[in-house]
Each structure stands twice: as C-alpha cells, then as structure tokens.
C-alpha cells in the first residue's frame, strides 16, 4: 500500500487511506478483476540436492493438471476413491465452486502406498496430534494427524504414505506417538492396504475395492442477467418524478399509494423484450387490476450516456399505437439514478440494471420484488400474493434452496453480545452492550420494550452481582423491577443484593413485597429460601423452604436446599433426618449420599458426626458416578481423612484435582490443591 500510514496515526491521517480502501471495495463490487486469471501452482519435491540440503522443487503446475484458472480457496487431501493416491477437494470463488480432482497415479504406475486411520483410547478419540512414523526398506517417513490446516480446510483423518517402488512382499513398521499417551509400534504392515488402528489393539486392514471415477466436470453455466429477487427485508422506495406522454409532470409517491401495490417498469422502445412485456401487461390488464396492481412503465430513452440529444419519437409512436391501459411515462437521469442506487444497496455485487427491469412495490411503498429482465405474468400474479403473506412464506419464496433453519430465528441482539463478552471475561464489553440494549430505540410494542429492558437490566444486575458490586447490582435489579413490576422473582433477586449492599430495610421490604405478590407459589418460596441462604439468614430460609416443601413434599431439590438451610441454621440433626428420609425414596441418589456423607464426616456435633458411615456413603456415591466427579471425590477424600486414612484421601484428592483441571474447574482445582497440601502436612506430622 503506497499510502498506508506507517504506524499509529490520527483519524485525519488515515481518512484518505480508508477512502481508498472503500473505493477499491466498490470497484470490486462492480465487477473488476483483482489478481484474476491466475493458475494454481503445484511443486514437486525432488528430494535433496547435493549433500543433504533440500533441493529445488520442480514446477509441475501444468504437468499435474492442477493449474486450473479458478479463484481457488479451500483445499483438502483425501483418498476419495481408496486407490492409494491422494485426491483433492477444492472450493472456488467462481463457478464451479466445488471440485474433486482425482489422482490417476496408481492407474498404471508401479508405486506402493499404505494408509492408516487411528482411534485413540486414552488420548482424544480422534487421535488428533498423533505423530506417525512409517519405516519400510530402511526409509522412514513422518506424518501428523491434524484437524484444520491450509485455508478453511480439514483434510481426511486417514493418513497416507506414498512408498515409491518397492520389492514385492516388503513389510513396514509403524510407530505411533499417541498425543500425551505413549508410543506404540506395529510391525509387519503390508503396503497396498488401508489399515485401521485402535490404540492398544492390533491393526485391522479394510478390504473394500476402489471405485473407478470417470473424469467429467460440469459445463460452465451460461451467464445471465435475468433474475427475480424477493426481498426478505423490504426497503423504502424513493419518490420518482417523471413526465407523461402528454408532457405533464407527474410523481410516484410511495407514501401515497392509495393502499395499492405498484409495479415500476423500466423499458425502451428499441428493446424487443420490453415491448413484448408491455404488451403482455396490456393484454392481461384485467387480471392485474383484479389484484389491485398499479402499473407504472417508464422509458429510459430520455437518458443518454454520451450527451446526445434524446429522441423519444419511437417511444411516442409505440405509446400512441399500443394505447397501454396503465400509466406510462419518461424518467430522467435522476429517477434512473435513484432506482439504480436503491438496487445496488441491496446487493454486495452490483449489477447494472438491464432492460427491462421491474420493481414490485407493496402498498406501504416498500420495495418487495425485483425483476431483472422480463417477468412472466403468472409469476407476477403469484408474487402479488406474496406482498401481504406471512414472513415465513416470503422466506420460502426468497431463497433459491430450501433449508431447515429460518434465518430470522437467529437474530443477534445486544444482549447476546453482552453475554459473549461476559463469557470471555471482558466485563466492560458486557456492560457496554447491556447499556446499548437498555438504550435501544422504542418499537411500536411497549410491552415487548419493557420486557427487553427488564431483561437487559437483569443481565447487568447479575453481572455486577458476580463481581460483588452490590450497590450497582441493587440499582440494576431495581430498574429491572421497574420495567417488570409483576415479576416477584425479580424482587427476590433485588432483595438479596440490597441486603448485601447494606440496605437491609429495603431488602426486607422487597422480600415482603415479593412474598405478598403470589401466595403459595413453590418457585417463589423456593427462591426466597435460596435468597435467604445466600444472605446468610438460614432461619428465614428454613421457614420459606418449609412452606415450599408443604406444597411439594416430594420435591427433591427443595428438600436438599432445606437440609442445607437446617445445617446452616445450626440444626444438623434436622438436616440428617431430611437426608435420610429422602434417601429412603431415592436410594440411588449420589447427590443425597454425597451431602449426607460430607455432613457426617465434618459435623462438629458428636451426636451427629459419623466418619465411618460417611466413608461408606461416599464410596457408594463415587462407585455410582464411576469416580468421575471431582466434587464426589472430594467428599470421599474428606471422609477418608476423617477416618484417618490419609494416604487414600490423598489419592482421591489427586484424582479429583486432575478431573477438575480437565473439565476447566480451575477454582475447584485450586481449593483441592490447598486441601492436598493440608493433608500432606497432617500426614507428615508426628
């Protein structure tokens, strides 16, 4: 870039540079070539030159047949026809946009090969990252299994080894370095086979015969300007001034359609298809009128590119002769420009408007369908029905191929961005987008607007709460309540953070209001119970949760929360009783066993404490969960430690730490490491 700024620069410095980028983009958008007509390259590795240095590759672009003039993009390796040589899938920018290039090497050549697919057991199942070394006739090759390489491409996971010319019966040896999982060596592999290798098992050859794929590519589609485009997002049509054939100044005003759709047609008297189309409209005027369509046909013959004086003689003659039963007129350069710009804004590839071109505008003055080239009457009639059709019908009509997804089911809102920022740990970004969601322009649906604002404030409140910014959280939840005053659950959340921020009176008031809003509501009572546990008021939590339990005696979640509340409220025996009762109805629940075990192992009340039973319960819970949950393993370790089995406890902890780490629970892993330190100290203590 001859005028790129060289480093950090002010906006004034770069404005010219950016304008040029935009200009360049615009030129490409209008159909300019840019490093086009290039042929793909292919370089043959001819091995070491003198000494052991890598020699010069030979350019076999033409000799290989790979030198296509495509705007190539993605490129992937695969032995698609399983004949032992590598074929290639390619994507292109232009047509054809997909190709399979078959390798004809093994057709006649005396060349050996071997392929192998891997299946990991202790490493990732795909064995991505495995290093394969194949040795045959004293020569070693190294290949690696990767997922994603080149440009936007994933090649086959089947690894291919070309082996050149080999004496018959020669066998090879494969060494696989499984990623993070040790090395395995397999002997006596025979060239000419597709093997499958499962980590730790003998290789299995696959015996399927290769198909013979006949060469043949699709002929290029004939270029055409003809197009019908149904818009899924209609755009306002501009006001168009024109002159009618009596010489009077007229105006098409989209804000004054009289509730009728309009077809704006561009024509010229010298354009045969235009004239045929106008006559078609004319012949079937009654059926178009029955659909309430207004037709406005404008000739472009007053516009000249070269400054020559326009000649409207032929157009006038045609209009006089044909007596079209719809409005006809003459557009000037400005009208044509407005329509051209309207059209070009819709597409990233601008096309010049052909003749004829028609724009179907709905009764609200919004452009709905574009016809480049003539439109058939049947098409026009059916498109008139689309104008007032449901969005899903318009979608079906707008896309060239069916699809099971509906694009507008995936709208991206500011809150989606806010959540994504929060996920990535960028809380400032999350706040910024939440505030944008809050500040969104009101729509004509105030109920929806309020709900969206309540949601955005709630998100913001939760965000502040997660970093213990209690005052900010209380303010945000408060706003959320204002936008959704009938949602008592929001008031509960508000109350909890108000309490944490020190506004205890306000908190109590919020809880009371929430409780009053709906009597005997399980979810509400459960939420109130949890909120009071959160703000360390277990006594109140017990009351709310007991009320909830009375309404749903069998609800396990409420029971477990209640047991926890009892425990926190200094009543471990009530907690134990709750757990035992639940264990009777849910004898296999690892959760109940785990919670009970932890309480029995750690309770300071000697009447409750029972490390031996804790150990038995924790062992059962872990057996049920296949020892794959770091939390359960932690409980087991605790029970083991309390029964004096410190070395077992350390083993359990070690496994828990590994699992926590593998599943990304870094904070838990940290806590467990600290605990491991404590146990180790205890173990080493006299």
């Amino acid at each position, binding site marked *: 870039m001859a005028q790129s700024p060289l480093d950090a620069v002010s906006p004034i410095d770069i404005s010219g540079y950016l304008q040029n980028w935009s200009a360049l983009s615009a030129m490409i958008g209008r159909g300019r*070539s840019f490093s086009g007509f290039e042929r793909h390259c292919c370089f043959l590795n001819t091995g070491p030159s003198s000494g052991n240095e890598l020699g010069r590759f030979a350019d076999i672009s033409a000799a290989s047949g790979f030198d296509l003039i495509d705007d190539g993009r993605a490129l992937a390796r695969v032995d698609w*026809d399983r004949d032992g040589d590598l074929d290639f899938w390619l994507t292109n920018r232009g047509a054809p946009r997909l190709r399979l290039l078959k390798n004809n090497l093994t057709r006649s050549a005396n060349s050996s090969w071997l392929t192998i697919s891997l299946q990991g057991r202790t490493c990732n199942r795909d064995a991505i990252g495995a290093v394969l070394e194949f040795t045959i006739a004293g020569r070693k090759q190294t290949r690696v299994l990767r997922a994603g390489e080149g440009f936007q491409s994933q090649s086959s996971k089947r690894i291919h080894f070309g082996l050149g010319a080999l004496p018959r019966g020669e066998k090879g040896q494969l060494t696989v370095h499984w990623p993070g999982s040790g090395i395995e060596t397999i002997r006596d592999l025979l060239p000419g086979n597709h093997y499958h290798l499962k980590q730790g098992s003998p290789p299995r050859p696959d015996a399927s015969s290769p198909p013979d794929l006949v060469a043949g590519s699709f002929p290029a589609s004939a270029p055409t300007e003809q197009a019908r485009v149904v818009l899924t997002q209609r755009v306002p049509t501009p006001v168009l001034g024109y002159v009618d054939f009596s010489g009077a100044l007229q105006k098409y005003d989209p804000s004054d359609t009289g509730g009728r759709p309009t077809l704006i047609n561009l024509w010229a008297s010298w354009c045969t298809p235009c004239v045929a189309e106008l006559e078609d409209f004319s012949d079937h005027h009654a059926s178009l009128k029955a659909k309430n369509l207004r037709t406005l046909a404008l000739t472009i013959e007053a516009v000249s590119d070269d400054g020559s004086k326009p000649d409207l003689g032929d157009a006038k003659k045609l209009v006089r002769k044909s007596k079209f039963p719809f409005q006809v007129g003459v557009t000037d350069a400005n009208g044509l420009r407005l329509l051209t710009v309207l059209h070009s804004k819709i*597409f990233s590839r601008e096309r010049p408007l052909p003749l004829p071109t028609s724009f179907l505008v709905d009764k609200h003055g919004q452009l709905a369908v574009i016809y480049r080239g003539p439109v058939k009457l049947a098409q026009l009639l059916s498109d008139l029905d689309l104008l007032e059709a449901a969005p899903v019908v318009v979608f079906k009509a707008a896309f060239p191929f069916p699809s099971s997804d509906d694009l507008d089911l995936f709208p991206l809102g500011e809150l989606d961005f806010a959540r994504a920022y929060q996920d990535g740990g960028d809380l400032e970004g999350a706040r910024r987008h939440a505030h944008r969601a809050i500040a969104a322009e009101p729509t004509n649906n105030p109920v929806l607007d309020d709900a969206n604002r309540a949601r955005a404030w709630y998100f913001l409140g939760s965000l502040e709460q997660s970093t213990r910014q209690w005052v900010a959280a209380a303010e945000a939840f408060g706003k959320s309540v204002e936008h959704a005053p009938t949602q008592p659950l929001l008031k509960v959340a508000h109350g909890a953070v108000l309490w944490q921020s020190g506004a205890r009176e306000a908190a109590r008031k919020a809880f009371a209001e929430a409780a009053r809003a709906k009597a005997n509501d399980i979810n509400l009572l459960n939420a109130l119970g949890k909120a009071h546990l959160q703000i360390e008021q277990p006594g109140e939590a017990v009351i709310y949760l007991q009320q909830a339990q009375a309404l749903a005696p069998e609800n396990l979640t409420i029971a477990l929360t209640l047991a926890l509340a009892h425990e926190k409220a200094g009543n471990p025996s009530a907690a134990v009783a709750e757990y035992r009762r639940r264990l009777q109805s849910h004898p296999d629940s690892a959760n109940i066993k785990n919670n009970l075990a932890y309480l029995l192992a750690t309770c300071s009340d000697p009447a409750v404490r029972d490390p031996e039973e804790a150990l038995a319960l924790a062992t059962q819970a872990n057996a049920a969960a296949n020892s794959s949950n770091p939390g359960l393993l932690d409980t087991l370790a605790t029970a083991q430690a309390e029964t004096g089995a410190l070395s077992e406890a350390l083993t359990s902890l070690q496994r828990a730490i590994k699992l926590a780490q593998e599943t990304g629970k870094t904070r838990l892993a940290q806590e467990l490491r600290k605990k491991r330190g404590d146990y180790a100290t205890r173990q080493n203590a006299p």
Partner: protein
Amino acid sequence: MRAVDFFLILFLLAAAVSCDSEDRAQATNESSAESEKPKPPAAVPTRNAEIPFAPIGLVDQTLHREPSRDAWQGEVFNDLASAQLKALGKILVHPAKLSLENLQKLIHRDFRPSELRPGGLVVVHQDAAFVVKRPAADQRPRARPFLEGIRQLVTPFAEARELRTEFKIYSVALDAGEPVSNSWFQISGRTPGGTLTMRAKWRCHWNWPSPDEPPTLKAIAISEFEQTESLGGPLLSDVTKTVFRGLPEFPKQFNHGMDYWASRLESRYGIGLSGWHGLAVGDVNGDGLDDLYVCEPGGLPNRLYISRPDGTVIDASALSGTDFRLQTQCALFLDLDNDGDQDLTLATTLGVIFMENDGRGGFVVKGSKLIPEAAPLGLAAADFDLDGDLDLYVGCYSLRRSNEEEGQILGRPIPYHDANNGGRNVLFRNDRSWRFTDATRELGLDQNNRRFTLAASWDDYDDDGDPDLYVANDYGRNNLYRNDRDGNGDSKFVDVAKKAGVEDISAGMSVTWGDADGDGDRDLYVSNMWSSAGNRVAYQRNFQTEAGETAREEFQRHARGNSLFLNKGDGTFADASLTAGVAMGRWAWGSLFADLNNDGRNDLLVANGFITQPDDTGDL
C-alpha cells in the same frame, strides 16, 4: 502529521495503469492456440434488438481513476513491455508459422544473440508420473540469433496440442539506458505422450526511445530453466460430475459463482464476493468412507454429502439437520465428546456452533459461542492440554463492520504492512459435557492477538509432546505460539514467531505443517500474496519515500510470495522459500503438503487467484 496523499495505493495504481490498455483482457499475458477470448459485450446500451437486455447502470468514475503518471513510469513501461511479450506469446503457440516477419515488431535490429533453451539438459527427477530436466551445472550457454533461438525453444512442441504461453513481469528497472524487465515465462502443451512444459526466468533488455511507442527486445538472458514432462497425460482429473451424478440441485448451487449469488441474495445475509468458504472431510456415518461438508455463504444452505462405496454421494444436508443458510466460513469434524462419532463444529456469523452426531450422521445443536467483536473465520483443533479432549482455536479476521461498511470486501488494516486492528482470536477449552470456555487470556494467547487472521494450524514443532500453534495473518506478521506446560500440566503460550524466524511479514493466507526435507520434524509452508504489481512498485525508488528502510523492506517482503520454513530442530527455522523455488504461488489461498506421486516426499499444492471477472475492465 504525515502527508499520505502523495501516493495512490498500490492496487488502485496497478488498476488504473492497466485499464486503458485494450489488450489486457487477462492479468497474465497468456495466449492460447485454441481460441481467442471472445470480446464481452459493450457496457452501454446499443440499439440492437437481438441483445435481450443491455446494461444501463451508471458508469462510476472510480473505475477510471488515474494515478499520477510520472511517479510510476515503470508501470507505463510495464504495460507496453507486457503487451510485446504477450504478442510474442501469441506467435509462439503456432510453431509452424514462425517467421522473422511476424517477429519484426517485437525485436530490435541490434538484437544480441541469446540462448532461450539450454542444450544438454539432464534428468534431475524421474518417477512413474514425471520427468524433470534442468541444465547441467557446467553447461555453457550457446547464444543464437533471435529466430533460431525461438525455433530451438518451440521445436519440441511441434506435435503438441493446446499450446499455451504466459509471461508475467515482476520487476522493471528504467535506471540504465536500456530498460530491463524480469519476468516468468512458461510454455506448455499436450504431447502425444503426455504433457510438456518449459519455464524460465527471462531477463529482457529493451530499446524504448519514446514513451508513446512499444519497446523492442534487445537481449534476453534466461535463468532457472526447467523442463517438465508428465507421462500419460495430467496426473489429476476433475471427476466432480461423476461424484454428484443424480443430484440436480448440485450444479444449480455450485455451478454459479459468488458474483451470481451476491447479485441475487440480499447482502444482509452475509454474502460477499470473497468466497471464503471452507470444507471439511470426515467419516460422518462410521462406514469407513470419508464424507464431505461444504460451507456456504449466507442465503445458500451448507451441504453434507455422504459418500457411497462407488465414490458418488447422496445429499444428506436436510436429513442430518446441517443445512444452515447462515453465513458459514469453516467447519471441522471432531469427536468432541469422545463417543466414537464425528461431531460438527461450524464457524458462522453467529459464532461457533457445536453439533453432536447421534452416531448415524444426524446432528443436533449442543451450543454456540458468539465471539462479540468479530465473526469467526477459521478453525483448528488440538488437545493442547493433553487432557484427552479436543480444544478449539478460532481465528477471526476483521472486526464486525458497521452498517456503512457492510458488504465491503476488504478489511481496513492499519498500518497496511503490520496491521494490528483485526479481530481477536479465541481459544475455547473443552470442559466436557459440551461446555467450552474462552481461555485465551489465561493461556497467554492474547499476545499479538489483533491481527487479520486467515488460518491457523497446530503441530508440535519443538517435539516436546504438546501441540504448538501457528497463526497466519493478512497484512502483517504471523504468530507462532509455543505451548509451555508446567509441572501441574498447566499450559502457557508464548509468541515466539520472531525468535523462531517465522514472523513472515506479508499477507498470510494459509498455513500447512509437514515434513518437507524428510528429517522427521515439522516444517512450515505459509501461503501469501505474490503480486507482480506489488513487486514492481514496491521496489521502485519513489515508493513510500517517507518510510524508513525497514518499513520499505517490509512492504517489499509483502509481495514476495509464499514461504517455506525448514525446522532446524533447535526451535528455529530456516527460510528456504527461494532456494526451494516455492515462493511464486501467485495470489495464494489454500496450500497443502501432499505426496502427489507416492514417492514418500511431501509436495506442495497452492490454490490461487483472488477475483477473476469476465468483463474486460483490466485487472487491479
């Protein structure tokens, strides 16, 4: 404040210089014996009733923007010299019609005898598919008069069909009395036994007395001559039609280019002209046969093609639930939950979408990850922390655009040669149960992470047992993130690209790891933009005169082409791009190591070409 308006940008410049030249239908001065390219229709309406519809769009002045002519006289000369070489190419494709008469306009009367095809070629490589010959090291050149030299060059093509020639000038020097151009020359054709290609660098000395007249050749010096024969016809043949036999929807969707679709689908669905849509190969239904997933622009459905034993495919897009019409850039088949089937991961404008395979090739969405600042572009997976599950690196190109910029094909790099205002890439750690956590920052991957990333790939280049990551970026330097794991097994990444010698300041488009020299460790091939215009302009004296020498070198490096870096085994790499002859891959995109001829050595394939348009408006 810098005065940046002195120079027009490079591409605008190359465009404007070339667009007035009638004869430049193509970027390369390529001639074909078979047929001349037909002239496209004129861009203004004609009173011809036979032409159904003629364009009446507005002609925009930007198409005809002129550069400051004096500043780039080299480009003016290039245009004239290119036309002369193209004319020569046209003559060469008819070996039987060679005569001094039709060469007269091209050569100067004082043409100094030159050698165009060295005698005494020796076979440097021969296998079942290819024979490669080069001049013997001790061979003395034998100069001949022009006509005789040309005859000697084309004699081996006497019986060849489909003859093709190409010249591409990549540097010009006007300083001396005799202007000099450097170009690539190639002639190829189909012979009764296969194909024959000769290529060489031509250093041409010209006589150019007047700026308005075409220059004439005074001498030609060739180097790097190479002759390649393929035995029994081209190695690769297109079998697409056979594979998609019986799928009428296929040609309807894929036999139209991006220009066709981008002028028929609203741009708001994310359909643009760049055509950056990838593909993934994997065995979706566990039958041992590889299947294919093709990503498509917004508005066109992605396609899943399941292969049958006979090599043809069935379209399982709708049945499998993977026929999204969302703008999709890249896909990977990965067993993310280690249950023995290939799950599907997609990079779309809505973020990364994770789909679970039900074991029979049916997919359900298990979750998605929106990357707020940028739409994801490229995907590369590895188990970086060796915990037994696959993690995902997501490359993001440019920041999400404002509405105003939407639909523009190009990013807005600042500064061009070392841009750091692109999208932020993300590493998603697999935390099992379809939970993926953005661990970019905690892992140290946020260093140099504002680049215009086009590709990334994992490999253990330092052979310490864990995968490292190479990231290829447009408009600047690349990243090599070394994976340093501590005693606890915790990974930290450090960008060692500079130290390792693989920064590769240029327009990185793709990256492929592979053992190029057969020593067992992983070498690196990075595809870039090889621009003849860039080479010509960036080396002229008035290019970026305000820039320091370093920045100028960086600009020049930008146009050099692809890079091959050989792993030295000590954590650093040696740049072998030029000695291995693999730099000139043109405007390169996908590149791959692949053993094409089963000789156990990794060859290289490069797909290229940015934007080819049929209209005769000149190449930018």
